[in-house]
């Protein structure tokens, strides 16, 4: 029973660390985790446990360990002497946790490696200018495109662009070139 409780607390601690490190939930502080999970522990003891779990999680995530790699890694950790290793219960909790969260953590790390804003959304409409206060109107259609851009965790910015037919063709031509490049890499790999 005590082991099961201990594993549950370690799992919850790992979840809390992951929320903050990888899922952008900055409300899950170290203090919050201590109060919720390890209220009886001293500050120093909890900090040591927290930092150990955090370091292990970062190592596992950085290497994107598969099952075999993780097993070897955790076995080595359980054999360490002098308190720097992990207990079998902690190792079991880590293994179960990583199995459940590996994909999502990896996706989060990949998203964090994209530093420019991403294209969150796109809308367009096509207008026909029928008259104008100045000059002739060509009666050619014009596309208005609204791009929704934003980085992870930030609010969106909107950019509105006008394309005549020539510009639409230019963009499509460039995208076709880009697609050729993608295809050449994808088919080579």
């Amino acid at each position, binding site marked *: 029973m005590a082991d099961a409780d201990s594993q549950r607390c370690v799992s919850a601690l790992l979840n809390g660390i992951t929320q903050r490190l990888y899922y952008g939930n900055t409300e899950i502080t170290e203090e919050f985790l201590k109060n919720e999970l390890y209220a009886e522990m001293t500050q120093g003891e909890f900090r040591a446990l927290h930092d150990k779990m955090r370091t292990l999680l970062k190592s596992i*995530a*950085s*290497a*994107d360990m598969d099952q075999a790699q993780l097993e070897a890694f955790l076995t080595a950790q359980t054999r360490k002497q002098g308190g720097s290793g992990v207990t079998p219960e902690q190792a079991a909790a880590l293994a179960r946790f990583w199995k459940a969260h590996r994909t999502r953590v*990896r996706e989060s*790390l*990949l998203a*964090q*490696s*994209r*530093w*420019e*804003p*991403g*294209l969150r959304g*796109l*809308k*367009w*409409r*096509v*207008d*026909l*200018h*029928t*008259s*104008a*206060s100045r000059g002739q109107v060509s009666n*050619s*259609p014009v*596309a*208005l*495109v*609204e*791009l*929704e*851009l934003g980085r992870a965790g930030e609010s969106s910015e*909107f*950019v*509105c*662009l*006008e*394309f005549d*037919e020539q*510009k*639409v*063709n*230019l*963009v*499509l031509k*460039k*995208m076709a*070139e*880009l*697609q050729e*490049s*993608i295809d050449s*890499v994808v088919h080579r790999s």
Partner: protein
Amino acid sequence: MYTLLSVNTDYRTSIHYPVLSRLAVGQTLMVNQLVDMEWKFGVTVGTSELQKTGNIFLQLKLVIRKGNTTENVYMELTLPQFYNFLHEMERAKASMDCFS
């Protein structure tokens, strides 16, 4: 000021209201014009947080005209985002072809 005969080929594609508000209040309706588009494509092999990625990156730079100056808009797309962008531009072109 343009009088626009707007042809919405898709009832969902109404321009984001705050954008139109900002553009329309006290101003002639003006939208930025695209001058050029540049792109960069490659594979990210590793990062400080993830040793091996093998993730495709697509960076686009749109050069847009704002009044007398130009401005660069940068974005980084995933493959699905790129294909969605391409698909929508093709749809817009098809719509324009009906009236050109």
